[in-house]
């Protein structure tokens, strides 16, 4: 085909038939899965006639709970892809002794790049953003976030970035530069293809989305708390969310600058990070890790908040050391900006500088240690129930401590020089992020699922998944510690040292468990949907909860609270139940003003994703058009003044009273039957 002359490049840029993944059977299969998956979803929605419903109830919704749920859906889809990719790499390494295996080196490099980029930007970030979006406004007694439309725009930017990642599987090849995309390797001189461009644009969309989310969540916490909810009465999850959003506000701009300048190098021919022309790639390393290190805490702090809620809830005790947990969280947030150089101890700065950053890094261990002790003391002398979220929390406490210790080792520059770029590092950060982030997010998903959909998740399959995640993690990653000490480099597609093999085989078996864990999560969801009548908890309080979100029905109404609560203590709902004031009839109801749906976010996100695709393939008309539409959408929206609708007080009263009437007929559930169908969401404590 003539792809370099005539009308073709004007219309399609550098896109050609070569971009299709027929160069390898595995790439073809992966692309087919994506295409077939997309076709199946579209066909299913069409068959069920649900397009209008999807558009009105979900895609254009500005309801913080629905936006949160959509974030989690994105996270789970991307989690599935990235877990499969990780398992493929483990399988390769399990057979890679003197053997090129089944993955070409180039393909292997694409896999570790997409695996890392997806897990950070399109699994972890959407997951925690979704959970915060869903739970936080209810916990502080609010009906909405501060900027509902901005929230939708963030969601659709994230969706656009995730979409770009999926498209890169089908059209063209992704970057081989790892999740951190270091130039000069990713500069045009060495990598003229589309790979690094896909990486740049997908990551930038996610970065912009997260910056706006940070602003939105921080302002919501500052300005939308209900009466009496002073800062030191907020649930701990709100505090960790606040720290995470402040980190997002300050730490995402460095990423935007890094990817933006790299894009200029590639598209305009500037010399920021090139080898020649006065460029300096150390600027990229500094910018990237100025984002990258706070990012670690952006990821982990919300999970700390979830663990705090879960451990307190399932130990039936008020959180031990609440103030110290807040101070520790704040310390971590501040210190996270002082340690970024430890990501490149070996890149040529002086030993003195390394020493400063090494010591700062070790200091972070102190507030983190404080937290672990607080959680242990919360459980002490409590009535601990081993539900699924609690099992994840316990596994986290043990495994995270192990990972933290290896972090202290790595913080020492002298040791770092020995193990840098080895799989020891791979073991360390998976040890922090799987127990630290993923377990926390799945615990949160299990804990708050009933609040979203009105029924609990199946307990047995939850435990199976939990067991597989824990076993899988231990088998897949703990062997990498000795492997790293033996000198195995990370990102190795083939090796020639027989001593590595037993460990890589164990890690490969671990990957099978991780796949089984993923399958168990899917099974759990299917089984739970089938058993939804049995598992329903209309009372709204399946876990004998302590915070405000459990004071309202399951699923939560659009406006969350029929009447905005007024609180006078920490763990407000628990206090209501103690005083017997949990389920009162309100005397007065008022009209509630809620945001109307808007398609601005959808248009904005899709337009920028399309523009990104245009930039990646040099389809300039698409790039310009996408940017113009993305500018026009919010401008057009600013001419719409009728952006809210009123839910009449009478309707609110009717729904609330109907719920209360139903609630009073429910059998109160003792905690011994918490995980059985006898639990209808009314806790015994409240009924007594």
């Amino acid at each position: 085909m003539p792809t370099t002359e005539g009308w073709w490049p004007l219309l399609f840029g550098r896109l050609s038939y070569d971009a299709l993944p027929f160069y390898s059977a595995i790439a073809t299969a992966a692309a087919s899965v994506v295409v077939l998956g997309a076709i199946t979803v579209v066909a299913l929605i069409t068959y069920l006639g649900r397009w209008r419903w999807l558009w009105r109830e979900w895609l254009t919704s500005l309801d913080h709970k629905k936006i949160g749920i959509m974030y989690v859906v994105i996270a789970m889809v991307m989690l599935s892809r990235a877990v499969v990719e990780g398992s493929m790499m483990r399988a390769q390494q399990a057979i890679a002794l003197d053997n090129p295996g089944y993955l070409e080196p180039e393909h292997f490099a694409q896999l570790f790049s997409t695996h890392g980029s997806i897990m950070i930007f399109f699994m972890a970030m959407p997951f925690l953003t979704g959970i915060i979006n869903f739970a936080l406004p209810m916990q502080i007694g609010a009906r909405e976030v501060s900027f509902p439309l901005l929230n939708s725009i963030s969601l659709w930017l994230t969706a656009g970035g995730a979409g770009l990642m999926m498209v890169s599987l089908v059209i063209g090849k992704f970057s081989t530069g790892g999740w951190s995309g270091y130039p000069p390797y990713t500069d045009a001189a060495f990598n003229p293809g589309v790979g690094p461009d896909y990486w740049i644009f997908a990551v930038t969309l996610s970065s912009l989305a997260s910056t706006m989310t940070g602003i939105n969540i921080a302002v919501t916490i500052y300005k939308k708390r209900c009466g009496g909810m002073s800062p030191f009465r907020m649930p701990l999850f709100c505090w960790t969310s606040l720290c995470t959003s402040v980190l997002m506000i300050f730490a995402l701009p460095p990423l935007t600058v890094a990817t933006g300048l790299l894009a200029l190098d590639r598209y305009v021919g500037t010399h920021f990070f090139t080898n020649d022309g006065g460029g300096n790639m150390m600027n990229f390393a500094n910018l990237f890790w100025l984002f990258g290190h706070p990012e670690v805490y952006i990821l982990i702090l919300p999970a700390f908040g979830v663990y705090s809620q879960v451990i307190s809830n399932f130990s039936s005790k008020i959180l031990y050391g609440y103030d110290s947990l807040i101070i520790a969280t704040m310390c971590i947030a501040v210190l996270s900006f002082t340690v970024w150089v430890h990501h490149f101890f070996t890149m040529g700065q002086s030993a003195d500088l390394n020493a400063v950053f090494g010591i700062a890094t070790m200091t972070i261990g102190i507030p983190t240690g404080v937290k672990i002790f607080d959680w242990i003391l919360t459980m002490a002398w409590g009535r601990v129930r081993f539900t699924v979220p609690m099992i994840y929390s316990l596994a986290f406490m043990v495994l995270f401590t192990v990972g933290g210790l290896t972090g202290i080792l790595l913080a020492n520059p002298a040791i770092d020089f020995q193990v840098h770029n080895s799989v020891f590092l791979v073991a360390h950060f998976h040890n922090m992020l799987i127990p630290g982030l993923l377990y926390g997010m799945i615990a949160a998903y299990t804990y708050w699922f009933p609040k979203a959909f009105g029924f609990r998740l199946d307990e047995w399959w939850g435990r199976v998944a939990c067991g597989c995640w824990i076993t899988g993690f231990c088998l897949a990653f703990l062997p990498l510690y000795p492997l790293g000490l033996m000198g195995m480099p990370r990102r190795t597609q083939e090796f020639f040292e027989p001593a590595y093999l037993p460990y890589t085989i164990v890690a490969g078996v671990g990957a099978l468990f991780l796949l089984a864990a993923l399958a168990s999560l899917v099974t759990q969801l299917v089984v739970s949907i089938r058993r939804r009548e049995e598992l329903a908890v209309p009372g709204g309080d399946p876990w004998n909860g302590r915070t405000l979100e459990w004071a309202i029905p399951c699923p939560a109404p659009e406006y969350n609270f029929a009447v905005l609560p007024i609180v006078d203590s920490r763990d407000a709902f628990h206090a209501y139940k103690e005083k017997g004031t949990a389920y009162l009839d309100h005397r007065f109801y008022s009209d509630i003003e809620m945001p109307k749906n808007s398609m601005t976010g959808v248009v904005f996100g899709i337009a920028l994703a399309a523009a990104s695709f245009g930039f990646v393939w040099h389809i300039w008309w698409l790039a310009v058009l996408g940017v113009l539409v993305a500018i026009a959408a919010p401008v057009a929206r600013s001419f719409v003044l009728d952006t809210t609708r009123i839910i009449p007080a009478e309707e609110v009263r009717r729904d609330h009273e109907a719920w209360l009437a139903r609630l009073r007929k429910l059998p109160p559930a003792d905690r011994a039957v918490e995980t059985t169908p006898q639990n209808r969401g009314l806790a015994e404590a409240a009924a007594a």
Partner: protein
Amino acid sequence: MSTAARNRHPGINLGNTDPHTHAQAEETLFGFWVFLMSDLVLFALLFATYASMIGATDGGPGPKDVFELSSAAIETGVLLLSSLTMGMASIAMKYKEHPTRLYGWLGVTLLLGLVFLGLEAHDFVKMASEGATPQRSGWLSSFYALVSTHGLHVLAGCIWLTISIIQLAVFGLRSEVKLRIMRLSLFWHLLDVVWIFIFSVVYLGGLA
């Protein structure tokens, strides 16, 4: 004094002149301040990149070869003046002076913004014609990135000003329009602050 008169956010408050909008302003304006803070981080990093690349001229032109103090000084004057007129617009809006005043001040601000952009574009074209293009050296790359990011912000501000003038004409002084002009004014003043740093660090520093 009623509670409405209390200042709810930094900057010009509507206070008693429009208690209804004043109450709404607290959350909206606070959010915008937070956004500005994030935007400032972006500029801080571009400044840091620029600072680390002073001297990375790769044998090409340096600051003394391409900068003209007179031109940068005029640009500074124009932008500072536009901040003053924007302030006058905010006051005209707050005290509900005759609508033509508000239109006038916003119009003058827009005009000054456009003049600034024209002067800056003229500088860039002249520099490029002398071989000082962004592709020439790392130092020039970082110069263009920093200064044109500021320029793009001013351009965004000009588009926003135009839309505000149109919305004033279409909707009149509604709460929504007022809140937007209040945020626009913060944005505009911030660009002024950033420019003062650019003038001091890039131009004065480069020519010193």
